[in-house]
């Protein structure tokens, strides 16, 4: 933690519980996207994910076989020579990313981009860009919040979160992170519902951005 984390990969990782929820598919979309952003930076967690997928495979093999209508195999065999249906092609992995909207300007060097589709419910997914040295407004959280740092670094208490680092906060946390002074910081953030602002100016920003 005392050395530059960028050189050795992220130092702050999702917990086993978060990675398991990610692999099993039970994380909601906004949160899943933030974990995926960490995985892009983190070879260790990609290996952990492969291990969890191996466990998922072994669990499927240990399940009892369901009764399949024999017709299903016949249909599948008949489909083998047909071209791939369009829907399946759309589902192919692409370089596509979660689509984010245009940046909403907040103040010099500071902006926010909301994801166009953050999935079900009231989940929020957004990119937050803060200038070097920026101290955020003090705030707390009403629910779980996941953050992956995409660029730069910020300090929260005595911990530094640098590019690739992952942070999970729950409702009990009140904090006031500060961007490091050597450059701007961009984070991808998912949260269950708008944060709890503890100041008047915070409530004004919130009204403007919906965050």
């Amino acid at each position, binding site marked *: 933690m005392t050395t530059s984390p960028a050189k050795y990969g992220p130092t702050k990782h999702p*917990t*086993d*519980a978060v990675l*398991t*929820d*990610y*692999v*099993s*598919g*039970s*994380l909601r*979309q*906004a949160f*899943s*996207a933030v974990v*995926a952003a960490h*995985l*892009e930076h983190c*070879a260790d967690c*990609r*290996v*952990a*994910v*492969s*291990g*969890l*997928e*191996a*466990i*998922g*495979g*072994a*669990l*499927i*093999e*240990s*399940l*009892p*076989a*369901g*009764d*399949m*209508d024999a017709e*299903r*195999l016949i*249909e*599948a065999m008949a489909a*083998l020579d047909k071209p*791939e249906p369009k829907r*399946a092609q759309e*589902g192919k*992995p*692409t370089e*596509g*990313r*979660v*689509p984010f909207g245009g940046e909403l300007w907040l103040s010099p060097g500071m902006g926010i981009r909301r994801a166009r*589709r953050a*999935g*079900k419910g009231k989940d929020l997914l957004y990119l937050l860009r803060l200038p070097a040295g920026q101290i955020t407004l003090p705030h707390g959280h009403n629910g779980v919040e996941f953050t992956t740092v995409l660029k730069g670094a910020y300090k929260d208490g005595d911990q530094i979160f640098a590019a690739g680092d992952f942070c999970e906060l729950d409702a009990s946390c009140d904090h006031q992170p500060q961007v490091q002074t050597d450059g701007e910081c961009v984070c991808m953030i998912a949260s269950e519902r708008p944060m709890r602002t503890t100041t008047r100016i915070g409530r004004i920003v919130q009204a403007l951005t919906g965050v």
Partner: protein
Amino acid sequence: MPAARRDEPDTASLVLRIAERQDKEAFKALFVSFAPRVKTYLIRHGAAPDRAEELAQETLLTVWRKATYYDPARASVAAWMFTIARNLRIDTLRREKSAVAYALTVHEPESSEETPHTARQTAQEAGRVRKAISELPPEQLQVIQLSFFGDKAHAEIAEQLCLPLGTVKSRLRLALARLRGLVGDLA
């Protein structure tokens, strides 16, 4: 070579036969051994039986179409099948498509240096993981199964079991510690 419990090396060679020469007999054998279990997996996630059959069928068809992408040194056939079935489940049952596309891009094209395994090692590991799962203490097995088959995140699992979240997490951690030790260097 210690024999894997089931015919694990063979399932990998079935996929390779599909990749190399569109071998329909190999597809049939894979379908028979996996589709019924994938159906059970989907039912555990709340799919109606008919829907579960359709998606199990689609899972196997995806294996047919993407067989050339399968690398037996990287993952067991079961693990690969699991990710395909999971993605179809999320796509179709939850209609949250963009995040899945996002997640898919992350760990598909992986450099092989991170997993310097042979196909045989991967297959042997799969056998060991299956065995270890069958030997987990019941309370750990329950948490592992609910984690993978139930569409519930850990906070909800804790609620369902009327256990503190910390207990659920520590059971998960203990189970993963046992299982991961068996999957190469994933400890």
